[in-house]
């Protein structure tokens, strides 16, 4: 497992830290923090849980983010920028 991190400026700041299994190319665990808003707030915990064991590939991540946010309202980021923030961890590997 490797520890990866990224700070991404969407409309608000998104900070990602994750453990990453580079042999299987999957997320082991992930923490997403920032000054954004999500209603309901518990959506973020669901998103983090849903991302565990997901391949760190753009389409896979985007699908999980979209599914997790579908019954919520987010301000300060969208599906694309959250996906960019997560995928950006690879640049900092």
């Amino acid at each position, binding site marked *: 497992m490797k520890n990866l991190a990224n700070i991404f400026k969407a409309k608000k700041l998104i*900070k990602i830290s994750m453990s990453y299994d580079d042999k299987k190319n999957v997320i082991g665990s992930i923490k997403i923090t*920032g000054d*954004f808003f999500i209603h*309901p707030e518990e959506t973020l915990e669901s998103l983090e849980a849903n991302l565990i064991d997901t391949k760190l590939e753009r389409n896979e991540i985007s699908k999980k983010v979209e599914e997790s946010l579908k019954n919520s309202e987010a*301000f300060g980021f969208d599906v694309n920028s959250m996906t960019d923030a997560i995928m950006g961890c690879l640049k900092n590997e």
Partner: protein
Amino acid sequence: MNRFEFTKIRVLETGHNSGSWNMALDEVLMNGVGDTPILKIYGWKPSCVSIGYFQSMNEEVNVEKCKQVGIDCVRRITGGGAVFHESELTYSFISRNYPQSIMQSYEMVCEMLILTLKKLGFDAKFSPLNDIIVGGRKVCGNAQTRKNGVMLQHGTMLLGVDVEKMFSLLKVPKEKISDKAIEDVKQRVFGIGKKFDLVANTLKDSASETFSADLSLENITQEEAAATEVLDLEKYASKEWNFKR
């Protein structure tokens, strides 16, 4: 006139209290509010840094420095950024009746704040999603949550600004702690320079006018006080809550 009208608003002026107590009372009021909305007006003693629900205390706040100088740190139940609460008036507005659109509900509550600022002589405007500006500078930041059919919006009206002190308490990247960066922040925020009591009284008048409501000036009940004490200790003063991210 606001599209939303209330027969009565329950007004609570709870004085200056710790960050964890202030946040605990917000949650207690949210859990217990009936058909009458609540306007709570308050301050912070000691001064406090609050962080947004999704932020990390260790990433955002110089916790050691806050401890050294006796400043509280607390996580809010609302999103948004870290705020240094010192020279300001803080309000919470809690209601079961509100527009379902998040933007419209911010506008609804902010209308009362804009009227307050206008009465105090400032040309204030709503700046979506959640700010109020005067002359292009932020004077009031707001944050909202909704739980079990209740909306809570809380926010601050800046009376004064001490950017240097704020920077010393937040984890601002070193390259940003320059004279220019401090000057930039000073240009982006605005303290109205009025006394707390004057702003509080003007806010009460504005709430009544905005929502065509009578005001019921009350104290928190013994039950609310007791529930707040418990929630303060068990949740908002706990490491588990404040360092959960």
